[in-house]
């Protein structure tokens, strides 16, 4: 266990945390502004990945693939908002869960119908396919580093959008008092569609970026969706800052746990048993973290409301 290996794993944890943030930010925005729990957010992640893989496969350009992921996911998001989601704002959470569960079924089987059951592959662009040399003698894949940078830039852009622009003011006002801003002449229906499409685009971007590391397949979105829920529970619903901190915590705990828990157990147990016990505990480490936060602060680290 060398120092550079530890740093490399910290970077891996950051990378998965930042991708989780892109998912969790959309979910938490949609919940904060519209009061909606959207299980189909994982489907939008999948739509983004499939759009990217299909377009990049056709044109050979990764950048065009990314653009297609953003556009495709935003479009799919706007479409389901207009057709389905908009009828759910006034409903209770049970109806929202069921309707968005139905959307998952439709999206997943629809994608399987169009693309088949076999995974697609999205190639990392040539320019980023090799490793880069970081200080302290660390060799790290350039693509993963690029994802971290892109994720951080998008996160900064999102904070700027929410905190400094007119749209952001409306979004925050919508969180606080939707009747009042409707009375002030803001088209609340359009604002909701924009917020939903924005969240969808973030999910689609994450799907496309991660799709180049893992395979692009039906059902890829739901495990990430559930991790994003863990992030939101830890960070607090409706808080973008909470989503950011929560996502990094979850990403780091998950990645570092998988590497270090088996090693840690080897100090006190025989190696094969230690590997088994350590990796079993690593699988559930983030949920233990969530439970601990729940005991300490039931509304999450940055949650304002119960």
């Amino acid at each position, binding site marked *: 266990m060398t120092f550079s290996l530890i740093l490399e794993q910290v970077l891996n944890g950051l990378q998965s945390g930042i991708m989780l943030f892109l998912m969790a930010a959309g979910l938490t925005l949609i919940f904060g502004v519209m*009061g909606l*729990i959207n299980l189909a957010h994982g489907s939008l992640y999948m739509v983004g990945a499939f759009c990217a893989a299909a377009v990049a496969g056709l044109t050979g350009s990764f950048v065009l693939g990314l653009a297609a992921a953003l556009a495709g996911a935003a479009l799919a998001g706007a479409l389901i908002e207009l057709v389905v989601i908009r*009828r759910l704002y006034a409903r209770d959470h049970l109806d929202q869960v069921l309707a968005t569960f139905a959307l998952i*079924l439709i999206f997943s089987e629809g994608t399987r119908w169009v693309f088949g059951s076999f995974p697609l592959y999205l190639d990392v662009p040539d320019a980023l396919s090799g490793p880069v040399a970081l200080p302290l003698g660390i060799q790290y894949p350039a693509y993963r580093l690029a994802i971290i940078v892109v994720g951080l830039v998008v996160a900064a852009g999102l904070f700027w959008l929410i905190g400094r622009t007119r749209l952001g003011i409306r979004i925050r006002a919508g969180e606080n008092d939707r009747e009042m801003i409707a009375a002030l002449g803001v088209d609340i229906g359009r604002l909701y569609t924009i917020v939903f499409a924005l969240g969808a685009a973030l999910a689609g971007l994450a799907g496309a970026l991660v799709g180049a590391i893992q395979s692009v397949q039906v059902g890829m979105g739901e495990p990430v969706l*559930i991790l994003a*829920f863990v992030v939101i529970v830890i960070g607090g619903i409706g808080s973008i800052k909470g989503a950011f901190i929560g996502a990094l915590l979850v990403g780091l705990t998950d990645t570092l746990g998988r590497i270090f828990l088996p090693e840690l157990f080897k100090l006190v147990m025989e190696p094969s048993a230690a590997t088994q016990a350590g990796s079993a505990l690593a699988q559930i480490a983030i949920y233990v973290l*969530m439970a601990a936060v729940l005991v300490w602060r039931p509304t999450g680290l940055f949650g304002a409301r119960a």
Partner: protein
Amino acid sequence: MSTGQIGGQPPNPRGIFGPKKQGREALLNALVLLGLVIVPLWAVMADEPFTITLVTRAVIFALAAVGLNIALGLGGLVSLGHAVFFGIGGYAMGILAWHAQNYVPLFEWPVLFEGTKSMPVIWAVAVLASALAAFCIGLLSLRTSGVYFIMITLAFGQMFYYFAISWARYGGEDGMSIYVRNGFPGLNTLDPIQFYGLCLAALLLGLLLHARLRRAPFGLALNAARQAPERVRAVGLDPLRLRLLAFTLSGAITGLAGALFADLNRFVSPTMFSWQLSGEFIVFIILGGTARLFGPVVGAVLFVLMEHWLGALTEYWHIGFGALLLLIVLFGQGGVIGLIAGKARAHD
């Protein structure tokens, strides 16, 4: 919105068949019960063992959803993690029977225990283990409500799923096969219809329990805690304790269904913990109709029939199923029973 409580189950003063006003619902319930008796008997005569298996599957799913309905229908707790208890019931069966079938003692201290192939013992362990899990998960997740509760139960479900995958001793991702169905004293469980009889009896007991709970003081208090927790607190009851008890009971029943399901397939695997299954349990309740005693039964039967018939037509039947579910949620409040029997009493 923020509490996430759902529209409700009224206490039903006439028990399992409801008051006169609900004549059509009562008739429908009676027909469903009659069908659950006649169809398998016909299948025995016509020598169609597969039909019996299909109905058994529906009855077990119905029992799982009846369990969930205590938390969701009576308590207003939208649990998206009930597959946890289904899976624990399944693994209780799998682990006990695996040790017995492979002659590997489960533990040797304080007494030697070699596992068991006896259903009553397996059921007792399944119910106790899933009740314990429900108590612990409830203790943590009932500190919150609304969407938090939904997300947390979903997350705990995923935790058990991944844990089962990494538990190499009991098959990991591949699960465990049990070669011979477990036994029940006095019955030949290898005969499909006799095993079906056991499952149907369990379902009827579950329905009876639910019907009695609705009008018992506990059920009334739970219903009140769903509608007006402050008032319940004001009369000296603790809503958290009521919900925790309901959640524990609910998990125990779903756990029993899990043990039966594992015995039906003679196989357990981590998919019994999957979040899709948790979602489907909720779907059974809604498809049949919320606030209906027989909602979970009608929903589970419909689901299994659609899975069988639509699944034979096209492998993409989930698209049609999703669309149907969407239509029911958006436009058809009250589910299938609602379409046939009219509005539930609470909305009159």
